[in-house]
């Protein structure tokens, strides 16, 4: 299996999964938006979920990040204390704490993930303040160094993101998420809606950050170029099911499933 192969290439404590999904499904009335998804994600691993529009990618991401309650199956996560916990069994306070400390969530629309009327510094500092940081100078310094890491001019630290360009907003959203050093980041079409040149810069930045920080990430994208650049492994979805999974290069260069072959040859509209 790809999981075990992946695990061997990673070192340290990464031989145990960070997140597992078992028989995960979600139905809306008669529609099965997502069904019978099982996999394991290891520390430091980047998984791309690809498939055409409506195939269930976003639904799966929301199930994995406990924003949706599954109709079937379960998701477990290895907490910082090393204990594997069923997300459905976490209390609301624990789940929300996880969400703003050990996890990140990057939305396609930065307005969903940022406070547009609040300065960039406070946007980045919010998670720190939420976990009890109480020293303005240190919060600001940390925010400033994160702006640098995502290549935003620190002279813009007091400006609100509504004055930022689309690419800057997305980089700010990433900084805001990474400031608590999460181990897992969820991203839903993080480059969607951006110009091609802006996309390239963002992808480059994300790839560097993910490898420097040893982040695990689950990236939903309909853009196979994004999957190829960022991910170690891909899952191909169709009609709510995972129809093919494997190492990214293998799946994209040598797909088994006819559907994936169509997807890769860009015959299917993304």
């Amino acid at each position: 299996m790809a999981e075990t192969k992946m695990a061997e290439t990673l070192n340290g404590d990464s031989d145990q999964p960070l997140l597992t999904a078992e028989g995960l499904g979600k139905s809306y009335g008669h529609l099965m938006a997502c069904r019978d998804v099982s996999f394991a994600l290891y520390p430091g691993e980047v998984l791309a979920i690809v498939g055409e529009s409506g195939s269930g990618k976003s639904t799966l991401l929301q199930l994995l990040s406990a924003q949706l309650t599954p109709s079937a199956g379960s998701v477990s996560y290895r907490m910082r204390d090393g204990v594997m916990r069923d997300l459905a069994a976490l209390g609301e306070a624990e789940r929300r704490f996880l969400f703003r400390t050990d996890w990140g969530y990057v939305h396609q629309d930065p307005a969903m993930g940022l406070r547009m009327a609040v300065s960039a510094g406070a946007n980045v500092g919010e998670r720190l303040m939420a976990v009890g940081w109480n020293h303005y100078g240190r919060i600001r310094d940390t925010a400033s160094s994160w702006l640098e890491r995502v290549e935003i001019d620190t002279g813009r630290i007091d400006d609100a993101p509504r004055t930022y360009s689309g690419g800057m907003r997305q980089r700010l959203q990433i900084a805001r998420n990474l400031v608590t050093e999460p181990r897992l980041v969820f991203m839903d079409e993080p480059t969607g809606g951006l110009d091609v040149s802006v996309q390239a810069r963002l992808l480059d930045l994300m790839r560097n950050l993910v490898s420097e920080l040893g982040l695990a990430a689950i990236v939903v994208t309909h853009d196979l170029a994004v999957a190829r650049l960022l991910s170690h492994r891909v899952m191909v979805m169709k009609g709510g099911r995972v129809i093919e999974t494997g190492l990214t290069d293998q799946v994209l260069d040598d797909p088994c499933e006819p559907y994936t072959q169509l997807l890769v040859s860009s015959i299917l509209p993304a």
Partner: protein
Amino acid sequence: MNAPTYNFAYLDEQTKRMIRRAILKAIAIPGYQVPFASREMPMPYGWGTGGVQVTAAILGRDDVLKVIDQGSDDTTNAISIRKFFAKTAGVATTTSTTDATVIQTRHRIPEGALHAGQVLVYQVPIPEPLRFLEPRETETRRMHALGEYGLMHVKLYEDIARFGHIATAYAYPVKVNARYVMDPSPTPKFDNPKMDNCAALQLFGAGREKRIYAIPPHTSVVSLDFEDHPFTRYRFDAPCALCGAGDSYLDEIVTDDKGSRMFVCSDTDYCETRQSQGHRGSESAAPHKERAHG
């Protein structure tokens, strides 16, 4: 004129009982905003209908009522509320902070220490301290329930980033009993320390927003801040021109049309009491502030 058709203190007994239940719950959970079925009062919302309803619900025949607005007993708002209860409840009224058993206030806490057995009723326009950054009521409720108050510091952070210091001067957020973050109503932050470990019961009523909250006597009330930007009180750096007080909250009064000014105590009862005790300021012969206002 016909005989009055209203009940003691205007509200009917059912309504008062409902408000008292909300008050009791508020006292049991210090700083927590308790929803209540706010009633129409014969005055506009901006006039403190929340405070008026709380006062109406707690007033007994033996109570002595004081009403202040910006520290003064003699503004139109204070006078009309005092008259309202004198007429509808027939209670004694006073301007003396010491003699009052119930003090309804807008914008100030009296200077003199309150004593056990007194109740301070605040008129509150916006009870939700998180509203500034989070407009969704479902979300602010969840934040209170889970004690997630990082957002309050975001607001203070923004102040410092913009002005170099915490510029919030009124409605400065506090944490009550080490649990709920509360908006102390638009009192100046100078008054915040008086809420801490106060001997009197403090009740807050928001009419339009239909919320009641409370600080029971001797409860801890801490103003939020940063380690490197600690909470500070603020007053004009001057003695009162009328009574010489160097520790009271001051209003700046324009004394003529040439722009002359003086600083006098905002708490008129405190100022007059000091003057009657022989304390003097630089302008003691000058007209007192109501005349200056008029």
